[in-house]
C-alpha cells in the first residue's frame, strides 16, 4: 500500500465503517463486529504511515480546491502521526470497552452511538493529517457537530442542557475566534499551509503580533483553558466511553494538537518569543485553579474532567515556554495524558457499570471487589501525578527542564504546585479504595468486577501507560523530527 492510499484509506475507513454500522443496526453482534474490524483495519492503515514518516518523508494527499488557492489537502508530519496513532489505537481499546459498557447499562440508540463514534474518529484523523489551517478548521467543526449527538445521548433534560453548553462554547469560540484567525493568516501570508519554520512573513511586525494574538485566542478554548473550560465538565453527561475517548483523547487533544501545530508550523518558535507571556500566565492559572476545583469535586467523572482541564494546560504551557525541550515535552504529554486519562475514565465507567457508583465518597473499599479496575486506576493516577515508571513521568520532566532552560520560574512553580495538587486529589481515592473498609450498606449489595470487555480494555490501556515509559523510542524519534534541536 502506497503512503497516499494509506492516507485516503484511513480517512475513508471510518466513513465506510459508519455506513456498515448503520446498515447492521438490527443485528447488534454484526454491528459491533464491524466496529471492531473497522478500528483494527484503521490502525493498520495508520501504522503503515509510520515507517515513511520516521524515514523523514511527508506523504501528501491533495483532494480538491475548497476555495481558489486553498486546497483540501492532507500531509502526514510527526505530530499528526502521533495524534493519529493515539486516536486510532485507542479506538480499538475503546470499542471493546464500549461493547461492555453499552450492553452492561442497556443504553438506548446504540447504533447512533457507534455511527457517530466512527465518524468522530474519522474527523479526528482528518484533523491530524490536515495540511493547512482551513482543512483543519473544517474538520474541527465536523468533529464538534458529530460529537453533539454523543454528548446528548441520554436525551434527558440534563443531557440537553450539557449539550447546549458544549455546542455554544465550542461553536461560538471557533466561529468567533478561530475562523477570523484562519482568514487573517490567509490574508497576511497568502497561504494557510503548515510549513516547518512558520509561514508568516517576518517583516510584518505589527500584523504578526496582532494575528498571533488572535490565533492564540482562538485555539485556547478547545484545550479548555479557563475561562473557556466550561464545556468540558458539561460534556460529562455523555456515556463514559464518549467521555473517555472523545473528551480525554479526540476532542480536547484536537485542541492542544492545534496549539502545538500552529505554534510550530504557522508561527515558528523563533518568531513567537516574547509574545506568549500572557499565555503562560493563563495556562498556569488554569492548571492550579482546575486542580483546586478537582480537589473539591465529589463526582468522579467531574473530578476527572477538571483534572483534564488542568493537564491539558500543561501542554499549552509547554508550548508557551517556547524552549524546544518543553515543546517536545508538550507533544509527549499529549500521548501520556491520552493513555492515562482514558484508563481513569474506563475505571470510572467500570465502577458505574458494576457498582452504580458515581461519587468519590462512595468508593471505600471498592478495590477489594474490583481489584483489576482499581489497579489500573492507580496506574493512570500515578502516571498523571508524574511518577516513573509511567508515561506521565518523562513528559513532565521535559517540560520542567525546558522551563528551567528558559528561566521561567513562574512556570516551574506552577508545575510543582500542581503536582502536589494532583497527588492530593488522586491518592485519597486509591487509599480509600484499597485500605478503607467497605461501608455497611455496601455489604448488602454484593458485586464483582465489571463485564470482561471493560476490564480487558482498561487493563490494556493501563499496560500501555507502563509500556510507553519503557518502549518510547519511536515516539521520541517522531518528537525529535518535530522539534529538531530539542536534544
Amino acid at each position, binding site marked *: 500500500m502506497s503512503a497516499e492510499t494509506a492516507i485516503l484509506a484511513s480517512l475513508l475507513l471510518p466513513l465506510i465503517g459508519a455506513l456498515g454500522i448503520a446498515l447492521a443496526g438490527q443485528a447488534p453482534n454484526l454491528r459491533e463486529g464491524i466496529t471492531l474490524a473497522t478500528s483494527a483495519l484503521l490502525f493498520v492503515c495508520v501504522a503503515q504511515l509510520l515507517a515513511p514518516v520516521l524515514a523523514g518523508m511527508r506523504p501528501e494527499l491533495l483532494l480538491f480546491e475548497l*476555495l481558489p488557492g486553498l486546497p483540501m489537502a492532507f500531509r502526514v508530519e510527526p505530530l499528526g502521526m502521533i495524534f493519529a496513532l493515539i486516536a486510532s489505537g485507542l479506538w480499538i481499546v475503546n470499542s471493546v470497552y464500549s461493547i461492555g459498557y453499552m450492553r452492561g447499562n442497556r443504553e438506548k440508540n446504540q447504533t447512533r452511538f457507534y455511527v457517530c463514534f466512527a465518524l468522530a474518529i474519522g474527523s479526528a484523523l482528518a484533523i491530524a493529517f490536515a495540511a493547512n489551517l482551513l482543512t483543519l478548521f473544517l474538520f474541527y*467543526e465536523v468533529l464538534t457537530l458529530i460529537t453533539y449527538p454523543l454528548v446528548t445521548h441520554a436525551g434527558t433534560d440534563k443531557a440537553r442542557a450539557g449539550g447546549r453548553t458544549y455546542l455554544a462554547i465550542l*461553536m461560538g469560540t471557533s*466561529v*468567533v475566534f478561530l475562523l477570523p484567525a484562519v482568514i487573517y493568516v490567509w490574508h497576511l501570508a497568502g497561504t494557510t499551509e503548515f510549513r516547518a519554520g512558520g509561514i508568516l512573513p517576518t517583516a510584518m511586525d505589527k500584523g504578526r503580533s496582532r494575528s498571533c494574538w488572535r490565533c492564540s485566542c482562538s485555539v485556547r478554548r478547545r484545550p479548555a483553558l479557563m475561562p473557556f473550560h466550561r464545556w468540558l465538565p458539561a460534556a460529562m453527561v455523555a456515556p463514559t466511553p464518549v467521555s473517555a475517548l472523545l473528551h480525554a483523547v479526540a476532542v480536547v487533544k484536537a485542541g492542544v494538537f492545534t496549539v502545538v501545530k500552529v505554534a510550530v508550523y504557522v508561527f515558528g518558535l523563533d518568531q513567537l518569543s516574547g509574545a506568549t507571556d500572557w499565555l503562560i500566565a493563563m495556562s498556569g492559572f488554569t492548571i492550579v485553579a482546575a486542580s483546586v476545583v478537582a480537589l473539591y469535586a465529589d463526582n468522579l467523572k467531574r473530578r476527572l474532567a477538571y483534572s483534564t482541564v488542568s493537564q491539558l494546560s500543561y501542554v499549552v504551557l509547554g508550548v508557551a515556554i517556547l524552549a524546544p525541550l518543553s515543546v517536545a515535552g508538550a507533544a509527549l504529554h499529549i500521548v501520556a495524558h491520552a493513555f492515562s486519562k482514558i484508563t481513569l475514565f474506563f475505571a470510572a465507567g467500570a465502577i458505574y457499570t458494576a457498582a452504580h457508583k458515581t461519587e468519590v465518597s462512595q468508593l471505600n473499599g471498592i478495590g477489594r471487589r474490583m481489584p483489576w479496575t482499581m489497579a489500573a486506576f492507580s496506574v493512570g493516577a500515578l502516571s498523571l501525578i508524574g511518577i516513573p515508571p509511567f508515561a506521565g513521568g518523562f513528559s513532565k520532566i521535559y517540560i520542567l527542564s525546558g522551563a528551567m532552560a528558559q528561566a521561567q520560574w513562574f512556570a516551574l512553580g506552577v508545575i510543582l504546585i500542581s503536582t502536589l495538587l494532583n497527588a492530593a486529589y488522586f491518592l485519597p481515592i486509591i487509599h480509600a479504595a484499597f485500605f478503607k473498609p467497605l461501608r455497611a450498606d455496601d455489604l448488602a449489595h454484593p458485586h464483582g468486577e465489571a463485564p470482561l470487555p471493560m476490564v480487558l480494555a482498561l487493563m490494556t490501556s493501563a499496560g500501555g501507560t507502563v509500556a510507553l515509559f519503557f518502549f518510547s523510542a519511536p515516539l521520541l524519534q517522531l518528537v525529535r523530527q518535530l522539534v529538531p534541536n530539542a536534544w
Partner: protein
Amino acid sequence: MSLALHLPALQVVLPLISAPLAVLLRHGGLAFATVTAAAWTAFACAIGLWLQIGQAEGGVISYAIGNWPPPWGIEYRVDRLASFVLLLVSGMAALVLPWSRASIEREIPRDLHYLYYAMFGLCLTGLLGITITGDAFNIFVFLEISSLSSYVLIALGRDRRALTAAYQYLIMGSIGATFIVIGIGFLYLMTGTLNLADMALRIREVENTRPVLVALAFLTVGISLKLALFPLHQWLPSAYTYAPSAVTAFLAATATKVSVYVLIRFYFTVFGESLVFDKLPLPQIMLWLSLIAMFGASAIAIFQDNLKRLFAYSSVGQVGYITLGLSFDSVNGLTASIVHLFNHGIAKGAIFLLIGGLVIGMAKAGAVPPAPTFDRLAGLAKRMPLTSFGIVIGGLSLIGVPGTVGFVSKWYLIVAALEKDQFWLVGAILLSSLLAVAYVWRFVEVAYFRAPPVGQEARCEAPLALLLPAWLLVIATIWFGLDTSLTVGSALDAAQQMVKSGR
C-alpha cells in the same frame, strides 16, 4: 448553429409563451407539462449562455431584439453576472416546478391548478427578463410582470391570511415599482436614452446634477423595497409564511436575489462606483442597515413559533449579508454578495422545499396541511428523519459551518472586511452567525429531543416526489460548499467585470 445565437431571446420568450398556453389549455396536468417543459428549456438556455459567455469576447453577449440595433432598439445583454443569476433562477424553477405538482395537489383547489402554472410561468419570465435585459424601461416592465404574478401566487395560499399578505405585498411592491419607474424617468430625462450601456456613457456628463442624484435615491429605495432590505422588509415574512410552499421556496430562492442583481446593475453599470460609493454616504447607510438586518431580523427569527416565519425572518437577515458585501465596494465584497445570492438561494430553497414536504407529510390524507408550528414539530426526527436532517443541513449553511455553502460566502465577506481593516465588522459578522445558531438549534431541540405527541409516533416521511428535489438542493449546499470552482469562479469573474465596468 443559428439557434445558439438566439439563446438570449429564447431564454425569456419560451416561458412567456408557456403561460398563456397554460391558460388556454385549462387543464392542470397539461399546464404542468407545458410550463415545466418551458422551465427546463430555459434552464438549458441558461447553461448554454453560461458556456457561451466563457468564450465570448469581453465576456458579454449582446442581442438586438427584432434586429433593432441598440441603443434604439431593446438590447438583451448577458454578462458574467447576468448569466450566473439566470442559472440560479432557471435552475430553481426547473427544480421547484416538478416538486410543486405533488405539493399544490394538497394546497391549491384543483380547478385553480392551471392558473398556478400560468402565474408561475409569468413570474419566471419576469425574473429572467429583468436579469437579461439591457434596457432600463424593460427592467421595469419585467419587474411588474414578475411582481403581479407573484401577488397572485401568494394569494393562492389556503390560509385566509395569505390574502392580506398578498395585499400588503401588492401595496409595498407597487410603491417600490413606482419609485423605480420615477428613478428611470429621471435618468431618461437627463440622458435621453433607456439603454443601460448607453446611459452609463452619457451619465458621466451630468453626473453631479440634482436629477441624477434624485434618480439614484428613488432607485435605491424602490429596489430596496423589492429586495426586503431592513426596514423595508415588512411584506416579506407574512408573504413567505402564508404562500403555498412551492411559491415560498421559489420566491425565497430567486425574487429577492434578482432585486439585488438589479441594484448591483444600476450601481456598478449605470451610475458607476465613484458616484455611488465615493461621493455619497450610501455605503455607510447600507452598512448600518445591513448590520441592523443581520442582528435584528435574526434576533426576531429566534422568537418565531412558525417554522416558515422563522426562516422568512432569517431571509431578511441573510439579505443583510448580501448588501453588506455590496457596501464594501471591492472585488472581494462584491464576490461575497454574488456568491451569497446563489448560496443562500439554494440553501433557503432547500429548507422551504423540505418544510413544504413536512407539512404535507404531517397532514392526514386529503386534508389541508397544517402550519408548521413548533408544538407540531416535536419529535419530528423520529417521524421524518430525512426531512429533519435536511433542514438541519440547510440550517448549518445559514450559520456558515465549513463544508456548507454558507461558509464560502462568509469567508469572502470576512476577507473583504479585513481588506478594509474593519476588524470590528469581522466580529459583527461572526456574532450575527451565532444568532443563526440560536434559531437553527431551536428546531434541532424540538425535532430531536422532544417526544412526538401521543398517537403520532408513526413514521410519516414526505412522499418521494417531494423529498427528491429538496434533497438535490441539500446535496448542492454541501457540494458547492466543498467544490467552489463553479460558484466562486463565476462570482469572482462577475465581480471583476462589474468593478471594471464601474470605473
